[in-house]
């Protein structure tokens, strides 16, 4: 056995806890998880059945963590997990799973398959079986501060741009502000208008905020790669920046896995609760709306629909909030089928979008959303994750569909009543 294989198997062993054992103990091989999975539904290839993607983890659990399995193992009845197995499973664990969480919601015995995929990636990456793009992004993130490399110059340019547009100064590294704003690399590079929108909304609401030069980027490739050390390093950067400035809260940007990483995994990665609260930008906007501190004027009258990012809604619990806001600013807001908790993934989440090898599969998987959009025939799709935004634009173009995509914060900014 090679050293990397052994390291991978140990990483998998570390992931096995009572929930995992209860999930594997309860599976009745009914196959219903496949019916929920975008990759199975759009390809009808049974190899994409979610529980099957977890088979290596299941085998380790069975042969080492159950009494009867251990006995069978002593008689050599349990096949060992080999390097060849890991190679074969790499595609299943990374290319054909966006960690969207639909399977977790349909399994009749309640198996959280998505959480187990997340765990299985820890073992796969430790064994050197992760897609090179994710490994590369992790390296850039650790060395330069973002998966896209050094972003300070771009950030400073965008801030200047927003200041010019709004006439509101944005003070960097301001200690004692109410909130420290984080952005996703995607926003800085592709959708910087969100900055001006936030600037105006917060000014009107009387909120003080800042951006830290030490930690402004919120994405976390460690979560997608399945590497706790990388994930911890990246979360720590943000936590240290926020605690140094003594802010009351940190605003998680329109980015699905960043919210997952910061809000839910982060405290467990660093082993303690934060000294500040983490709030998703849309959660905060909805609070402000409820408190009467966010007022809009006029409405978008074109037909608009909403795309729920999996990590923010299904896996993040933010479902009502964007809808409250949508109704504020859109008079012809039409939901797609399955909207809300059971929404279908944009096809690019969980690192799949960055993974070259998965490109064809991803284009196929998008057919589900495509059909849903065709049914509604919207003029605009609004979402609250910059990576969903990016993926939707890419997919719509690939499928020759001419529909505008916009971030929700930006849309609110357009109709903000700031007189």
């Amino acid at each position, binding site marked *: 056995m090679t050293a990397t294989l052994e390291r991978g198997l140990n990483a998998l062993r570390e992931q*096995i*806890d*009572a*929930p*995992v*054992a*209860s*999930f594997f*103990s*309860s*599976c*009745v*091989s*009914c*196959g*219903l998880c*496949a*019916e*929920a999975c975008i990759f*199975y539904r759009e390809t*009808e290839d*049974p*190899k994409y*059945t979610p*529980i*099957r993607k977890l088979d290596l983890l299941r085998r380790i659990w069975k042969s080492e*963590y*159950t*009494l*009867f399995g251990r006995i069978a193992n002593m008689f050599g009845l349990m096949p060992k997990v080999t390097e060849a197995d890991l190679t074969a499973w790499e595609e299943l664990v990374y290319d054909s799973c966006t960690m969207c969480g639909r399977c*977790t*919601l*349909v*399994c*009749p*015995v*309640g*198996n*959280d398959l998505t*959480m187990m995929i997340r765990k299985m990636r820890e073992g796969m990456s430790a064994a050197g079986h992760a897609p090179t793009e994710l490994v590369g992004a992790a390296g850039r993130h650790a060395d330069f501060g973002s998966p896209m490399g050094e972003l300070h110059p771009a950030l400073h340019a965008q801030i200047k741009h927003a200041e010019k547009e709004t006439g509101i100064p944005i003070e960097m590294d301001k200690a004692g502000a109410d909130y420290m704003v984080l952005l996703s690399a995607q926003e800085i590079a592709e959708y910087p208008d969100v900055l001006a929108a936030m600037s105006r909304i917060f000014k009107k609401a009387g909120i003080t905020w800042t951006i830290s030069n030490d930690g402004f980027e919120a994405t976390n490739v460690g979560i997608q790669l399945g590497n706790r050390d990388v994930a911890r390093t990246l979360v720590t950067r943000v936590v240290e920046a926020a605690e140094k400035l003594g802010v009351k809260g940190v605003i998680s940007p329109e980015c699905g896995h960043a919210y997952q990483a910061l*809000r*839910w*995994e*982060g*405290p*467990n990665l660093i*082993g*303690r*609760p934060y000294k500040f*609260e983490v709030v998703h930008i849309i959660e905060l906007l909805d609070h402000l709306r409820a408190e009467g501190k966010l007022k809009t004027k006029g409405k978008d009258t074109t037909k608009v629909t909403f795309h729920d990012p999996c990590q923010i*809604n*299904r*896996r*993040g*619990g*933010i*479902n009502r909030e964007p809808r409250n806001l949508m109704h504020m600013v859109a008079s012809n807001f039409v939901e797609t089928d*399955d909207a809300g*908790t*059971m929404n279908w993934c944009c096809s690019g989440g969980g690192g799949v979008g960055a993974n070259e090898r998965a490109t064809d599969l991803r284009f196929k998987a998008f057919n589900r959303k495509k059909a849903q959009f065709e049914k509604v025939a919207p003029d605009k799709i609004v979402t609250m994750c910059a990576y969903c935004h990016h993926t939707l634009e890419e997919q719509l173009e690939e499928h020759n569909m001419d529909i505008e995509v916009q971030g929700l914060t930006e849309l609110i900014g357009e109709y903000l009543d700031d007189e």
Partner: protein
Amino acid sequence: MNNPYFDLLMWARGPGFDIALIIFAAGMVIRVVEILVLGRKSDKAPAKGSPVGQGIRTVFSRSIPRKGLINYAPVTYLGGYIFHLGFFIALFFFGPHLSLFDSIFGFSHWWPEALSFQWPSFGRVIIESATALAILALIALMYSRLTDPVRRAISTFDDYLVWLLCVLPLASGYVAVNKLFGDPTLMLALHILSVELLMIAFPFTKLTHAVTFVLSRYYNGAIQGRKGAES
């Protein structure tokens, strides 16, 4: 009393049943304990919803399929419901089974007569229809397991064995009660033996889910509930 099968029946009812019960009970205790001892790390992220409440709710709510899903797998859902219901009705509401439970667990000893609750047994028509429907549901489920690509791909020996072990008590019970064929004493003995096989297999197969589903559904609800997300 010179029925040649009488000894077999007596063995099945006596020592056979005791052996099966011990393996079943001890095996299941091991299965549950080996899950619980693995423990789980306390979650340091401040909860948004209620993990415990939602965990408990999910133990029940997950019995209802999510909207729309039934269309994708009608046989699995309907077959699953009918089989489970039929099996439970036949197991828990057939008069002779109730007397048996009473003799094992001695409900009538534990409670004063006045408090002793009357667990009704169902009439023959209901029991027999439930049994027949459960068998038909199992046949449909097996058909889907053999023909549907997903179910065929994930099926193991365990799935086929458990299927057989579920059919046998239902079928033999039906034959024994209706004296359809064979010697009635033999049929009754075989019925009891088939149940004992099912009990013995319980801790070693996916039948374990009948107990551990409470844990898995609870954890699912608790994990989602902490985030204020649906489960």
